């Protein structure tokens, strides 16, 4: 099976700035893929090149086997993109906007039931005749998502769809994306909410300064670092000198230690504390999450 997206040694410079420095990877059909990275990493630039909105300085990209430059029509027909910016056309109402967008992709009246279905799923039905300019930011975001899907693309890329969105709407969007994925769509998500990526994405690429820093199934990525976090609150004596180097965070009288799972069993640490005269009041352990790994991989 050909990949949904194939990215081959893509480079992009804006003047002296190298936004992408030779990025290569494939996204397989049916994946729920996370594209992560700090601000300015080059995520949106990569997405814009996939969408044919900007040209790469070198390298090539295909979507469902169609080169985005030489076979741009077929590539665009296979792809839906939700842009990062909250853009809209103030001239139209919600439903007309969606019907127009379907028309651009060659879809006529036969796409109208699907449009209504999406309006329902995104809880926009009551706004179908409302002018785009009268919608709140969250509603505009939902219309953008529906717009990306009017032509039922095989591959969907969402560039920070949940940025600045309230909790309730975020849940609606998660439900919607899951449903889309369950129906066989390949989904590519960029987000700054790492719990979101951890929960939704089966595979993750971490991009930093235009380079891929990690590309792994989410589970592998999480196991990549043999760390474990131990949070303690105790009294009686100060933290033993030997444990000082492992302090990861300190707050409200509790201390978080970052321990190596292989060489520092929790039992040994507790024994050490007991020996030094500390009385442990409370204890809590935590496995590393995506955020810890992200920080590890992208620190300067």
């Amino acid at each position, binding site marked *: 099976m050909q990949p949904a997206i194939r990215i081959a040694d893509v480079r992009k410079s804006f003047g002296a700035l190298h936004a992408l420095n030779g990025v290569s990877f494939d996204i397989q059909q049916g994946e729920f893929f996370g594209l992560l990275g700090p601000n300015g990493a080059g995520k949106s630039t990569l997405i814009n090149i996939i*969408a*044919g*909105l*900007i*040209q790469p300085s070198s390298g090539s990209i295909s979507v469902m086997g169609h080169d985005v430059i030489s*076979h*741009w*029509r*077929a590539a*665009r*027909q296979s*792809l839906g*993109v939700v*842009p990062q*910016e909250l*853009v*809209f*056309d*103030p*001239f139209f109402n919600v439903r007309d906007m969606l019907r*127009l*967008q379907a*028309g*651009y*992709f*060659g*879809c*006529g009246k036969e796409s109208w039931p699907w449009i209504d279905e999406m309006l329902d799923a995104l809880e926009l039905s009551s706004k179908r005749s409302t002018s785009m300019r009268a919608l709140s930011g969250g509603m505009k975001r939902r219309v953008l998502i529906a*717009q990306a899907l009017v032509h039922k693309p095989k591959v969907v890329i969402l560039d920070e769809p949940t940025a600045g969105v309230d909790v309730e709407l975020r849940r609606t969007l998660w439900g919607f994306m899951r449903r889309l994925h369950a129906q066989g769509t390949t989904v590519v998500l960029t987000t700054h909410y790492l719990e979101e990526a951890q929960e939704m994405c089966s595979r993750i690429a971490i991009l930093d300064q235009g380079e891929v820093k990690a590309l792994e199934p989410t589970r592998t990525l999480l196991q990549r670092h043999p760390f474990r976090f131990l949070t303690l609150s105790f009294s009686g004596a100060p933290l033993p000198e030997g444990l000082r180097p492992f302090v990861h965070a300190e707050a409200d009288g509790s201390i978080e230690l970052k321990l190596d799972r292989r060489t520092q069993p929790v039992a040994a640490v507790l024994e050490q504390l007991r020996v030094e005269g500390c009385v442990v009041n409370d204890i809590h352990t935590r496995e590393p999450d995506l955020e810890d790994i992200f920080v590890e991989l992208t620190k300067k």
Partner: protein
Amino acid sequence: MSVFGNPYGFRTLFFKECRRFTAVLGQTVGAPVITALLYLLVFAQAMSGRTPVYEGVSYSAFLVPGLIMMTVIQNAFANTSSSLIQSKVMGNLVFVRLAPIGAVEWFVAYVGAALVRCLLVAGAMLAVTAPFLQLPFARPLELFVIFALGATALAAGGVIVGLISQKFDHIAAFTNFFITPLSFLSGVFYSVSALPPFWATASHFNPFFYMIDGFRYGMFGQADAPILMSLAWCAAFAAVMSGIALKMLADGYSLRK
């Protein structure tokens, strides 16, 4: 790959561009018609005593085709340039750019919609002046060809300027410093042969002059320049403008860098 590979997408874009001006007909057709009528009233009154420029053509009648073509020039340019700059400023040009719509489809949709607006404007002006003036429509074919070439040239020019411009001010500056003066100074209100020799000669290098003069020929069967000359100028101007606009769209000028 076919340049017209997405006919339904093209049609949608064309109708969308038409809806942009049909939704505000008062502004896009009504206002220019009223402005032109005011010119007609004022100038026809002020010049009423003068000898006719052409045999058997009253000054008011002489004025009408020039005013129509001037209005067509201004509206063709305004339609494409304002649509593009609005979409650029709002950022919603991306919706079309994400779709499988190519440069030729894009160009024809935008220019086609501008032509429809110009047909409405010209038709409305003819309709309102019809009760007062007998216009002969001596050469309807030439009349229509000059109209279509002139409107295409200016609509394509609007695409070029819309692509180059970054904000509304840039379009306004171009309109105020090029389109309006050149369309005024091209024999709308007078025959250029009545001008001092220098200005008469200069007029013959202004493409707008040939649009207005050619259109007037279509109406009366007589004009300052030979009709073939007017047709050649208009065709060349339309071809150059369309060529540049298409090239810019195909290269993704300033849009795909």
